[in-house]
């Protein structure tokens, strides 16, 4: 109960922020919320189920391109196209999972990485449709969901908030559910879980599909919100970013992804405003953070007393 209250309070705080934030941080917050949704998706696979994928950009960009292409070239309604994003993420994750989940550990990392790389190259190769590395912009009409115009800052924040709130509460419900317990058990000891009558393959596939679904939803929303779909979102960098966000915030925590995403976002923002050698600062802070909190910030909190933190 106390934990539910804590999470609801965080959500309320995030919702209230939009009224006090100045314009720049207002947009940043909307970005962070969508990227944090992506991180939550990654965390379901990595933090809770122990699946370290290096190919999640496939699901993020897959959702972004599905929505973007359907609305831009397929003539779909933005609403319908937006729904195609998570669907694409989920279907891609199911396809990748069926093959990649035959492997584990480093081999799983490489297999997922390879599928994502192939997708990235395909986006560049079929540039006639995808715009290649340049990508394409989405028109104003493509970004209007019925009466809601995603180009409007308040609407955009609202959309980002709804997506994030749904993802976070969904994640909270999942990890406190019976299914969530099985996922965690698979992470902790796959063989033992099998001997309790669960099929680890099915559990991992489920986790990966949910993860892909959220990643795809985040990618689709990001594309519509900021009017741009591009190949750089499919690059390896976007597979590594959620890993950093989740590890910084705390893998296997519900709030960790948000914390980690916001932290890295503002770390880069702040570093580039104090020095031209900003990567130096970012690198140093990452190292200090990990020395101080090897299991992420919320992981540290969990070790220091808040043991029931989900």
């Amino acid at each position, binding site marked *: 109960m106390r934990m539910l209250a804590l999470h609801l309070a965080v959500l309320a705080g995030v919702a209230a922020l939009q009224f006090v934030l100045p314009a720049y941080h207002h947009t940043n917050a909307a970005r962070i919320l969508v990227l944090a949704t992506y991180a939550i998706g990654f965390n379901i696979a990595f933090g809770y189920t122990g699946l370290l994928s290096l190919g999640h950009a496939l699901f993020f960009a897959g959702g972004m391109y599905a929505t973007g292409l359907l609305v831009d070239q397929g003539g779909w309604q933005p609403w319908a196209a937006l729904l195609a994003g998570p669907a694409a993420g989920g279907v891609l994750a199911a396809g990748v999972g069926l093959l990649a989940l035959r492997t584990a550990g480093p081999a799983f990392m490489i297999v997922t990485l390879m599928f994502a790389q192939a997708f990235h190259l395909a986006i560049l190769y079929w540039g006639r449709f995808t715009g290649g590395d340049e990508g394409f912009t989405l028109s104003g009409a493509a970004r209007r969901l019925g009466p809601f115009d995603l180009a409007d800052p308040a609407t955009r924040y609202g959309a980002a908030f709804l997506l994030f709130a749904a993802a976070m509460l969904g994640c909270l419900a999942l990890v406190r559910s*019976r299914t969530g317990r*099985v996922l965690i*058990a698979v992470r902790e*000891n796959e*063989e033992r*879980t099998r*001997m*309790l009558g669960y099929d680890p393959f099915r559990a991992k596939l489920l986790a990966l599909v949910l993860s892909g679904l959220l990643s795809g939803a985040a990618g689709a929303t990001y594309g519509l919100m900021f009017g741009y779909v591009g190949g750089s979102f499919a690059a390896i960098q976007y597979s590594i970013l959620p890993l950093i966000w989740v590890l910084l915030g705390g893998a296997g925590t519900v709030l960790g992804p948000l914390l980690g995403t916001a932290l890295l976002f503002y770390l880069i923002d702040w570093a580039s405003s104090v020095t031209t050698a900003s990567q130096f600062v970012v690198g140093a802070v990452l190292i200090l953070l990990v020395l101080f909190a090897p299991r992420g910030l919320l992981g540290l909190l969990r070790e220091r007393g808040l043991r029931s933190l989900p």
Partner: protein
Amino acid sequence: MSLLEARGLVRHFGGLRAIDGVDFDLSAGEIHALIGPNGAGKSTLVGLLSGRIPAQAGTIRFDGRDITRLPAHVRVGCGIAYAFQITSVFPRLTTFDNVALAVQRTGARDLAAATGAALARVGLAGEAGQLAGTLSYGHQRLLEIAMGLALAPRLLILDEPTQGLATGEIESFMALVRSLVPEVTVLLIEHNMEVVMDLAQRITVLNAGRVLARGTPSAIQADRAVQAAYLGG
């Protein structure tokens, strides 16, 4: 009535004939012990029965159904539970969560109540909130058994359950096992002969991947071949 029938089981590891043509039967409601010297193939045999290790030849029928090709987790669903030799609880989860994982597999409605009951049955109700990894060794073994029991199995396989337990703990463990039958059939791998002779109604002796003897405790104690290979050293 026969609950489990295994015929002609074979499992080789490279050149090692871990199990080499074993027939094995369990009657419903009995406590059956599997004994044999180290390396006799006991763990491999229960591995074959539980599905952790695939058989290279032979058939296994459980309750009349051929389960030879079924993966381990499906066999658990059929009612075969396996409690690990080396404690293999989830150390970073709470005691409650450990048992709840097993309880929820049975589809229990009220998970909290059913889990509480399962913990109470082995006397761990007081440790529900503790991380399993922080429990004492004996308690971890009890937790392991609680997880097996919570699956509401028809056959419970206990792999060296008393290893590392204190004398007092062994007593209460034996009482617990006795209380399970005849609803549950128990297959016990055990080195402690006192426990075996006291608990088991029937015993199968394995040696070098083959069945050396089977029978009641007294018959086994009297068997010369067994004495030669095992008991007498």
